[in-house]
């Protein structure tokens, strides 16, 4: 009958020799490297702005990951951003009336099979009087329409072309002008050829549909009194796919959330698991080693802790005090000082204590502390490490479940928070799979790595369970 190897070093070496141990170490190294890179090189700015809607305005809402459009071959539109420097500026002045006009002109090639999810015009107007803004839109087939006409004061404007009331009415009058059905949506009108609109069967018009390929052209003109007139524009054609992991309903890049969630998840899970396992181990060892009063007290506390409704209490505390993730960590540890590991360590130490080498140590006068910490604890430590590996994922999931119930860290983007927002945002109801599956698969991957590690520990520490 084979027996379990002793000595931490030997056990770690053996764990690394098993297949599951190797896979686990590879996965964990990748995640750890990712976390460290983010921790060291990433800018804090992203986390600070995680809950700021303005910061993410240039991203599409609820866009699937980019690779998804390769997989399905759908050629879904990507985001095109036409920055102020992409606009050519021309200035003209009418000396008689004192009116000036700034024309901002830009062009872009559009070759996707679908319309952008949104078109946003950002406008900055500086003038002494009110100014007239017009936006004209020329398609590759040469047809031209006026999309927007409004008289505005100075300031910064965000015009969501698809839903803006002025745009909608301009489009309506354009449609009635060409004798097409007035109910066609703005996005369809903007990106379909005039001929197809007239025929009542609108089809998307790509730059490459005409020969030679021609771009879309957008002209924004601003007219006002010439004194102090200046303007700049930016046009965002937000796509339907974005980045590696897509975006959520607040336009945030989920991949960034995942990157920043990794160090938090690992730090939370590892710290909780390590501290709790070691405290419980030491208490269990103390109880068994000293016996009598100490044993009685520790045993009673362990029973109480095992009856306490851990999750309810944790949620209650978190709901009332709404603390950060690091305070949650302290609460979790405080609620798990005693537990099942205390019990299992106690019974193990009761056995080890009777072994001849301990008797020998007592006979040559080794101190009690020396016996406990140098002779007994090393024997139970491998089991503690096995416990750590199985507890890490459970604490990562604990953080996620607190987030899911809405009592997680209020600010930090954690994996649990991503899943919670996806769940609340109806990802399971509308099928935004990337929003929920990508953060979930990361959690599963990490948990799987720790589970595999635990499997190898179990295999090595309990060889009796493996025998033929």
């Amino acid at each position, binding site marked *: 009958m084979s027996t379990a190897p002793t000595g931490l070093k030997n056990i770690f070496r053996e764990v690394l020799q098993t297949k599951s141990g190797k896979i686990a170490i590879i996965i964990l190294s990748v995640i750890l490297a990712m976390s460290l890179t983010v921790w060291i090189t990433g800018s804090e700015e992203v986390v600070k702005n995680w809950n700021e809607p303005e910061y993410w305005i240039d991203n599409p809402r609820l866009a699937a990951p980019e690779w998804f459009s390769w997989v399905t071959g759908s050629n879904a539109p990507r985001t095109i951003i036409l920055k102020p420097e992409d606009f050519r500026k021309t200035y003209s002045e009418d000396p008689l009336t004192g009116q000036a006009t700034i024309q901002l002109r830009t062009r872009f090639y559009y070759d996707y099979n679908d319309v952008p999810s949104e078109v946003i015009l950002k406008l900055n107007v500086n003038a002494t009087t009110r100014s007239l803004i017009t936006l004209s839109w020329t398609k590759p087939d040469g047809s031209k329409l006026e999309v927007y006409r409004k008289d505005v004061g100075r300031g910064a404007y965000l015009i969501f072309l698809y839903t803006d009331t002025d745009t909608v009415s301009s489009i309506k009058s354009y449609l009635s002008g060409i004798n097409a059905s007035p109910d066609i949506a703005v996005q369809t009108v903007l990106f379909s050829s005039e001929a197809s609109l007239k025929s009542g069967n609108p089809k998307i018009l790509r730059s490459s549909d005409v020969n030679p390929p021609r771009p879309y052209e957008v002209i924004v003109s601003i007219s006002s009194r010439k004194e102090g007139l200046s303007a700049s524009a930016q046009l965002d054609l937000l796509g339907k796919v974005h980045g590696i992991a897509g975006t959520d309903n607040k336009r945030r890049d989920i991949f960034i959330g995942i990157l920043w969630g990794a160090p938090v998840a690992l730090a939370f899970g590892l710290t909780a698991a390590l501290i709790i396992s070691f405290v419980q181990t030491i208490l269990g060892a103390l109880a068994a080693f000293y016996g009598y009063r100490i044993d009685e007290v520790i045993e009673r506390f362990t029973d109480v802790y095992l009856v306490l409704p851990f999750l309810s209490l944790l949620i209650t505390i978190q709901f*009332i005090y709404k603390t950060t993730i690091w305070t949650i960590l302290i609460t979790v540890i405080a609620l798990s000082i005693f537990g099942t590991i205390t019990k299992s360590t106690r019974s193990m130490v009761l056995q080890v204590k009777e072994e001849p080498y301990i008797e020998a140590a007592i006979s040559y006068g080794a101190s009690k502390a020396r016996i406990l910490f140098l002779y007994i604890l090393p024997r139970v430590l491998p089991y503690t490490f096995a416990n750590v590996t199985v507890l890490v994922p459970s604490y990562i*999931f604990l953080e996620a479940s607190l987030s899911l119930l809405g009592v997680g860290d209020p600010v930090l983007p954690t994996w649990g928070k991503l899943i919670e927002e996806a769940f609340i945002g109806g990802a399971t109801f509308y099928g935004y799979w990337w929003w929920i599956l990508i953060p979930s698969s990361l959690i599963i991957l990490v948990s799987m790595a720790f589970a*595999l590690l635990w499997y190898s520990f179990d295999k090595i520490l309990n060889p009796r369970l493996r025998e033929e």
Partner: protein
Amino acid sequence: MLPVKYLAKRALILGVTVVIATYLTVVIANAGGLIDQILSSQIRFEITQSLSRDPAFSRLPEDVREKMLEERITNAIKAKGLDQPFIIRSFIYLIDALTLRLGKALVLKSNAGSREVADIILERLPNTIALFTTATIIYSIIGIIIGLYMTRKPGGFFDRFMAMVAVITGVIPPWFFAIIFLLIFAFYVRLFPLGGFVSVPAPSDPLLFALDVLYHMALPLITWTIALFPYWAYVVRNIVIQTYGEDFVTIAKAKGLSDDKVLRRYVLRPSMPPIITNVALSLVFSLQGALITEVVFNWPGIGYLLNLAILSTDAPIVIGITVITAYLLVITVFILEILYSILDPRIRVAR
């Protein structure tokens, strides 16, 4: 013969455990008295509001108004017993809880409109039993069968495969499966509803109503079973294999008994106690439902109620559910100890 002295000592210890655990729950669920302060200020606010809307009151002189207001507030606070310091009240709450006088809820009501905590809990309990106790029974049985099957050829393909599945699913909580299964089987495949207890509007025919509830129960039931049976099978397997290594099994084998007889007489019997303990405790915990899984499936059971109670700081409900579970738990443990002291000669002699 029953080891009476030993059992009496155990009963006392378990009793003390329940008392301390309940007291800690009382203190934490009331946020160390913070909830009482919130209640007091709520009463103050409501009375001030209602009086200021009263035209007769506003015509009174300033000092009379002030006095009247204070009087009403103190009376209302006294009526709720909030004038005593929390430390005293915490013991009153403790004794009430331990004697199962669960009292009235602060915020929540039962569907029938009752404020009694007992009514609110009892209204939800059947839903939780229907789902989670059933699921626990199902996964326990499946787990025992598969676990025993794994011991047929330890280290064989099936054993290793199931062990791997068990280890991986073992670290993933059921609510996580719930979210993924909702997305796949309810959203994409549309086999099941997206959570809830019955369709809206609920069918009026009782048979159709029952079928509709079953239809809503199916996915949570399947999720709970799939999430938990592999790990349980692994536990059963390990318990049984551990027994296989005992000396008396080796001797039985050496005597030339058939494998079947060895399994039945010498392996299964001594393996039963830990397996029964596990199942019994799982059944007790199943009455508490599953807080997060119920939230995910929108299932109106005890777990869902607990979450609702916590998020509306309704301490009496949290305490009520906790104390009932604690009692059930220690009573189960105690009954099992009596059982084993009768069944297992080793325990009988050791004490």
